[in-house]
């Protein structure tokens, strides 16, 4: 459970701290008391949980990363990936809801920006992506490839959502920092292994 579910925390620092706590919950679900290590040997968690490692170079200071030789087992990775995607989905949902509220308050030529068709279309696009991601993640027999595809769609939807914020989406106080961390975590943990070639999955539509 993150603060994003129950009304957004007041400041960007609070939101980032809540996100780091939610990421640690994902680790706890997969490896109680520990951290999940990606197949490429990376572990990313809150600074407190990881204990050592370097700060993730996004400037927020809430997450740390460590590289080591031993990846977590497939069961732990599977559990963690599902939890991570759910966190990504919840985070993006919070960003979308906040965008809608913000655009309803901001006016241009005396009319709320939320009334603009381009804006409404973008809101709908993000909502459709969230809805589809939820349904795909409910399918039986999850695979790493499916997880990666859902992640990519959520990244694209997140970029669409950030455009609703204009320059504010690029500030440390805005939602861009949070969504950047979801992208970075997916880049770290959500690559398919085995027969699915990650390079074949590269590129975004």
């Amino acid at each position, binding site marked *: 459970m993150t603060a994003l579910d129950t009304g957004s925390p007041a400041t960007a620092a609070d939101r980032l701290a809540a996100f780091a706590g939610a990421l640690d919950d994902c680790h706890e679900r997969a490896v109680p008391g520990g951290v999940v290590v990606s197949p490429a040997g990376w572990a990313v968690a809150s600074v407190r949980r990881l204990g050592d490692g370097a700060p993730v170079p996004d400037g927020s200071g809430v997450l740390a990363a460590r590289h080591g030789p031993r990846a977590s087992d497939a069961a732990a990775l599977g559990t963690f990936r599902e939890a991570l995607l759910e966190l990504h989905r919840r985070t993006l949902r919070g960003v979308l809801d906040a965008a809608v509220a913000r655009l309803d308050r901001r006016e241009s030529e005396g009319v709320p920006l939320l009334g*603009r068709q381009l804006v409404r279309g973008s809101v709908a696009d993000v909502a459709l992506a969230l809805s589809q991601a939820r349904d795909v993640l409910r399918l039986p027999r999850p695979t790493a490839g499916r997880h990666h595809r859902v992640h990519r769609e959520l990244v694209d939807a997140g970029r669409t959502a950030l455009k609703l914020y204009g320059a504010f989406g690029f*500030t440390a106080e805005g939602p*861009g920092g949070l969504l950047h961390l979801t992208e970075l975590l997916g880049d770290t943990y959500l690559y398919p292994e085995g027969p699915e070639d990650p390079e074949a999955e590269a590129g975004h539509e």
Partner: protein
Amino acid sequence: MSELLPERAVLLRDHVREAAAGLRDAGMEIDRDPTAVDRWLHLPAVALMRGCTVPVEYVSSPLRIGPYTYDMSSCLEHTLTIEELSYGDAGFMLACPGPLMSGVAVGALGDDKQRHAYYQRLAGPEPTWTFFGLTEPGKGSAAAELETALTPDGDGFRLDGAKRYVGNAAFAQLGVVFCRRAPGPLGIEAVLVDTETPGFRAEPIPTVGMRGARISAITLDNVRVEREQILGYDTLKPSRRGLVGAIRTLQRFRPVLAGTALGLTRAVLDHVRAERPALAGAARQCLDDLQDRLDAARWHNYAIASAIDAGEVRADRIAAVKTRAAELAERATLAAAGLLGPGALLRDPWLHKVYRDARAFEFMEGTGHIQRLAVFQGVAKGTFLP
């Protein structure tokens, strides 16, 4: 692509390319500490940025390459310069002293005396940072709706209001502030403001990326403005002043910004090729597709910039090339992270930096939504698609 450019442009491009070759380390340092540009002011790239759009008669040693002399008043040459420097590092380029957008506004609106004073200062021995203050907290960059007030006060005026998302403002010595002297579109003015004037305050706004842009928030509290600081006040009709200046500056600068995005994109694709020389199959196709889009966008951007130099300013096409370039930069950085494999953003600090930087182009010089409206106008008028 050289065959599409006149000889003097090719020589300039090659010269700037050389100057941009060593900018990555500086760019990485500026990403960590945006004040670090002060330690790199000796670089040739900084001299180029300081001289961009400053007329040659003000410069002690203007840029000469072969038989040609340059001041980058040409939109094409300005665009090429910025694209090449952005290939080196876009954040570094934006952190540099020099006229950037304020110079275009002063050139478009200022009278002889105003231009002379401005260029003399920019060409002086000390590096001078400038800003272009249009965007406001509540209204974005909708110039016609701006609320910063220019109020008569004795034999001059006072300036009150706020600007937001203004590059370099917290570090600048002077800049242009767009403000409202009277209601309606003819009531907008552009004022040259010295940041030492009492009542002027600017603070950096921390950002996710492109930290070299040093995006800032400005507060204007009873800032004294003399009549001679209002650009074109004594020489231009109100219909040719503030709002026109804002629009002309943005139009003239959009290909330059597109060049910034395309320079970054080219650097990203070259980086992928260097790191993964043996890409094959779908990955190779992905890279080839991005390269095609990049080549097409660069060619188109040069054509747009050349058209501006010829006096043909087409808002729909300018909006389109800026949008294409901004979206391509995002697409390329997302794809690069995928092509370089799991953990690339943690493993490759430079990639992580440009991945964050690339998102800035979407809102700089007008968001994608605003640009799309301009493209639509072109479609509706039958001017956008030949």
